[in-house]
């Protein structure tokens, strides 16, 4: 297991609220290998963004992060002090967000904000930082980096801003880049450009990427391995090809089936009945059972353990506890 870059063990995030302690994510473990694209996919509120914030150490009170370990490149970053975490953030571990306009400071020029990374982490002087920033802007495919360097974020288009964010995040050649819905706010043609850029840069720099998205087609396009989240739990982990070929968990199956493909001729779309339960009213047993068409007595009574299946896949469902589906086929 020498190529493991990040190992997250038994991660939970809770929030203290007036209604008591709400558990937003619970007991999730996964590993990210060096240089791979690891996708966290799920619907809104499933805890995929919280997972990334927890890794970055960005969850503040009233949030409580609990984990056995968060090992980044052999170093446990779970219990680091804020001052030490600051040295890692932006250098070994960096993040890009969904809405580039709100994550860039509108009062400073692009150059000013980009220089900061070099001046902070590499102790570069003013001229050197400028040189490096412009080089990074060119690196992410901005045609006219000198003029973009002087501009304010408001003068750039959405796609351009996201390129700047990527340039900034990759400035110190981090080992791990967390991208939280990086293309959701962008148009399809710009999304394509940004996804291609991320893939190219990842190959060139050998950076591992945790890509967070709700869009299965982005997963199909980008991922090496995938973790599917539902209501705070990772319910399935697999290689991307295996996942799309044969989804094991009923929720994954439902998600893949209800996605519209180009040239879809199905008269009706298969749906997942019902809606995601709120955190304050999680059903007993398996969290998915009220919406699951395979649910049985045991699903209502107890939470399923993690079952290991062929090809290093894991799934949290009673149907696979003995290594195979217990009853009925997955589908026709």
């Amino acid at each position: 297991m020498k190529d493991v870059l990040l190992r997250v063990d038994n991660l939970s995030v809770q929030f203290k609220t007036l209604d008591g302690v709400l558990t937003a994510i619970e007991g999730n473990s996964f590993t990210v290998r060096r240089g791979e694209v690891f996708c966290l996919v799920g619907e809104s509120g499933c805890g995929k963004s919280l997972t990334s914030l927890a890794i970055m150490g960005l969850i503040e009170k009233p949030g409580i992060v609990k984990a056995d370990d968060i090992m980044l490149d052999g170093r446990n970053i779970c219990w680091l002090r804020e001052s030490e975490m600051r040295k890692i953030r932006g250098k070994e571990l960096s993040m890009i967000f969904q809405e580039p306009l709100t994550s860039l400071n509108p009062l400073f020029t692009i150059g000013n904000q980009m220089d900061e990374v070099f001046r902070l982490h590499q102790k570069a002087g003013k001229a050197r930082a400028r040189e490096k920033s412009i080089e990074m802007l060119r690196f992410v495919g901005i045609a006219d980096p000198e003029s973009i360097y002087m501009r304010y974020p408001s003068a750039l288009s959405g796609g351009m801003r996201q390129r700047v964010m990527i340039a900034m995040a990759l400035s110190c050649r981090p080992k791990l880049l967390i991208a939280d819905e990086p293309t959701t706010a962008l148009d399809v043609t710009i999304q394509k450009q940004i996804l291609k850029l991320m893939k190219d840069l990842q190959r060139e720099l050998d950076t591992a990427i945790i890509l967070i998205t709700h869009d299965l087609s982005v997963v199909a396009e980008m991922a090496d391995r995938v973790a599917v989240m539902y209501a705070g739990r990772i319910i399935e982990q697999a290689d991307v090809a295996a996942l799309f070929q044969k989804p094991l968990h009923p929720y994954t199956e439902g998600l893949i089936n209800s996605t519209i493909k180009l040239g879809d001729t199905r008269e009706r779309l298969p749906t997942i009945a019902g809606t995601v339960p709120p955190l304050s009213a999680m059903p007993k047993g398996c969290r998915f059972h009220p919406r699951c068409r395979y649910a049985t007595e045991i699903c209502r009574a107890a939470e399923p353990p993690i079952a290991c299946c062929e090809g290093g896949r894991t799934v949290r469902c009673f149907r696979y506890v003995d290594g195979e589906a217990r009853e009925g086929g997955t589908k026709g």
Partner: protein
Amino acid sequence: MKEASRTLLAVEDLKISFPVGGDMLGRHRQYVHAVDGVSFTLDAGETLGIVGESGCGKSTLGNLIIRLLKETHGRIVFEGREITALTPKEFKPYRRDMQMVFQDPFSSLNPRKRARDIIAEPYRVQTKLSRREIRANVEHMMELVGLDSSYLNRYPHEFSGGQRQRIGIARALALNPKLIICDEPVSALDVSIQAQILNLLKDLQQDLGLTYIFIAHGLPTVQYISDRIAVMYMGKIVELTSNTDLFAHTLHPYTEGLLSAIPVSDPSLRESHTGPILEGDLPSPLHLPAGCRFCSRCKYAQPICSRQEPQMREVLPGHFVSCHFPLETAEKTDASC
């Protein structure tokens, strides 16, 4: 499925421009031509999809048709009557025939009203029904869109996104309209909920004989629900044709770019799916390129494209495109470029 085609709506050379900037006297004022010469017809019972990137004018077009905005030029003919020539008072009876479903079910429902009042409002404004009749109608509408009538007294925040969108649909359907304009009705919803709403829209169309204009930015969704599709770019329709033709015989380079930008639906297709990537950004609507609006991003552009604006023409039967060198025909005449 469709009965003899009957034109419900005709839009002719519709334009709207918004003034931007300028001083008190209107000097240095510039105009954004958000919708710039759009024409199409729509048959009863049909679904027309309008697709394009943000800022292409698709939502503005929807607002123009439903008369939330006043056009600066052009005509809209609804059931043979030119509604653009009507005064607001004369137009009021037509409002019940055209309704809208909005994108964001969070901001399009009044948070201070109960579900029952939201759905009842169209009846109160447009009909003289008694309270009891309204109540019965509202309950019927709730049932129609798949909501339990025990939810009638709830406020919008007590519903999930999908349920809110159902309320929005119930409100739009209340007066038994002929045309419904759906402006990105599923974009704000999760995948599993999107499928539920799309199924609902399809069922309602079949049961009630509705005509839809379905505005969205996602081609797979538009393609799934539409009979015909109009592709918009910078205020103009660049290609208009049947659902199947748009994919089988793509004529406009922009449509080609949009299609190849759609992420693959299956990881095994990754290698084989290598269409041309559309480079560059949308031009500023204040400084549109001369000639064809798309020529700054078009890899097939010729000198004439930056001089003369192409006109919309019917290249194949029922297949309209505004391009000097439509793809399939261009390959035959000029393969060298």
